[in-house]
């Protein structure tokens, strides 16, 4: 449950037993070939795994590097969130829970949770900040169409941070029949490592695909965007024992790993954006999924170890990268994923990525959800 000095289970006493039960159930399930088989089958027949590794040929030529995209945008519901959610929903079923609780920002994790709940015949209650509900009205309706209850959160900044707090509060009163399905590698132990394990399918697949497709076998660089950091954690997990350099790309206004300081929020010890009084500050990013003031504890630890590097890009760089990928490769990326690409573009330009480098980048989600943002800003 610890990643160096980070992680832990800083949960209210009322949730400690529930976390312990999740931990125990997950350990058992993860060691059970039956559970692994059921999950692998759901991921294959329902979510569309394995996802392809796409060589970005035209962009590679332009950048002077060899760029490969791990296509999580092609999964059912359109982002890597489904990997984690199917795992947790199956776990919840195994634990006899009949309802999933989730927080959501842009709505992607909420839609994924509503989807998994419908598939397995569970109920779903999704907490979402009132401001995000206004900004992401269509995802709200997708969730409702899938049968989920969407609860508006009217406290604090009325965004993801507050939705997470409210989901935790709600779970305190519902541990008996409900599973809290956290959407990223954050929260109290076992969530950060459990979610990473559910997401490592990204890295494991990519590792095998790179071995088959790349002349170097292993890419020189492995790049992913980091909000809470689940797609990056899952991707990095597949390359932890290789020579690949790991790069996590944060939004300038939500750079928990690059600019946060030690703290405790939402059940775990990690790096968080804070003011001089120790109050958590609101993150600001054009990408709703990066709009979180902290980072998962494993990323904080990887940073301290120097095993991964965390860099930031601006809203404008991300927008530019999204357009470039659309025009060069016919893929409109999620604004979150566009951050990872923006760094690749910048690094290829300034020599940070030497010419001829092989780069694996996780394209964590599709940009359909962001089209109205593109429309407004481009």
């Amino acid at each position, binding site marked *: 449950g610890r990643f160096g000095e980070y992680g*832990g*289970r*800083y*949960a*209210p*006493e*009322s*949730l*400690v*037993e*529930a976390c312990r039960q999740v931990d125990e159930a997950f350990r058992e399930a993860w060691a059970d070939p039956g559970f692994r088989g059921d999950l692998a089958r759901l991921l294959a027949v329902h979510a569309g795994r394995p996802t392809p590794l796409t060589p970005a040929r035209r962009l590679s030529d332009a950048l002077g590097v060899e760029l490969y995209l791990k296509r999580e945008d092609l999964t059912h519901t359109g982002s890597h969130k489904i990997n984690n959610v199917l795992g947790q929903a199956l776990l919840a079923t195994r634990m006899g829970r009949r309802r999933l609780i989730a927080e959501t920002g842009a709505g992607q994790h909420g839609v994924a949770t509503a989807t998994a709940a419908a598939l397995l015949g569970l109920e779903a209650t999704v907490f979402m900040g009132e401001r995000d509900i206004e900004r992401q009205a269509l995802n709200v309706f997708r969730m409702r169409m899938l049968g989920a209850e969407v609860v508006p959160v009217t*406290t*604090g900044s009325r965004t993801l*941070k*507050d939705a997470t*707090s409210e989901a*935790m*509060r709600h779970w*305190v*009163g519902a*541990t*008996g029949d409900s599973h809290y399905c956290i959407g990223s590698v954050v929260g109290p132990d076992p969530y950060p490592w459990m979610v990473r394990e559910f997401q490592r399918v990204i890295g494991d697949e990519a590792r095998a695909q790179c071995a088959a497709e790349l002349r170097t076998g292993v890419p020189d660089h492995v790049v992913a965007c980091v909000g809470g950091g689940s797609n990056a954690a899952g991707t990095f997990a597949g390359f932890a024992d290789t020579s690949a350099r790991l790069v996590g790309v944060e939004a300038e206004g939500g750079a928990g790993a690059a600019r946060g300081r*030690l*703290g*405790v*929020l*939402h*059940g775990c*010890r990690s790096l*968080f954006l*804070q003011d001089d*009084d*120790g*109050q*958590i*500050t609101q993150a600001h990013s054009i990408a709703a999924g990066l709009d979180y003031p902290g980072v998962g504890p494993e990323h904080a630890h990887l940073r301290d170890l120097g095993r991964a590097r965390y860099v930031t890009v601006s809203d404008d760089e991300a927008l530019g990268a999204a357009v470039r990928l659309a025009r060069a490769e016919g893929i409109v990326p999620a604004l979150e994923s566009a951050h990872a690409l923006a760094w690749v573009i910048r690094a290829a330009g300034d020599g940070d990525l030497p010419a001829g480098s092989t780069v694996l980048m996780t394209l964590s989600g599709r940009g359909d959800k962001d089209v109205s943002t593109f429309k407004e800003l481009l």
Partner: protein
Amino acid sequence: MTNPTLAAGTVERHLRARRATGRGLLMPYVTGGITPGWTDYLPAFAAAGADAIEVGLPFSDPTLDGATIQQAGEAALARGASTRRILSDLSGLPDLGVPLVVSTYYNLVLHDGPEAFCAALRRAGVGGLIVPDLPVHEADELTDVAEAAGIELVLLASPATPQPRLAEISGRSRGFVYAVSLMGTTGERASLAASSAELTERIRRVTDRPVLLGFGISTPDQAREARRHADGVVVGAAVMRRVLDGAGPDDLRAFLATLRQALDQECDRPR
């Protein structure tokens, strides 16, 4: 079970002494910095018969608090409240005759580090500390530091806590054991949760340290009922709702007096 009396600090000694008189214990709560003259609530609480006073340091993300205390925290932060300012306000107060216990989330403790934080509490005349998101298994970093600084770190127990863990919590808690009456957040409730009696009984099996019941106790009837099994009650949201509605120190004194009276009536009944 060790004899906790021997190691008891100021808060615990005070509460044990009051309990020994047969008195039901009352710990009202106020969010620090909620109004310009917020410290005036403290003597009023004492005058109403409080046995200890809990002062909340507002945090941006109070994950265990219900709507009332969230709202109070937001209001205080909006007024510019901070740990530094609230402790500074407290250090200017005359002796109230009852111990002060500060409550806040762990992020604020970590901000300057446990040692600096506890030292600051001590300087402000605070005797106890409650950190709702610091469960016993994560508390090592704070317990010794608090003890060394003379701050009694109060641990919370919940209806979901298994019995062996309750023993650990009760053993390591200082000042008193904070029994969370129900599976939920802070906030007023229509009636006392059934889980509270069972929890208190389970705590009593493993400690003779004072047990205060909190979360959802907001009326004299509830206080009276709580007193039947616990040593006393913590009253937070019921106080803060009144404060948010504009009630001043005198109003709160009157309200707390009704709770005091209820606890005193109940204390005469056989237990």
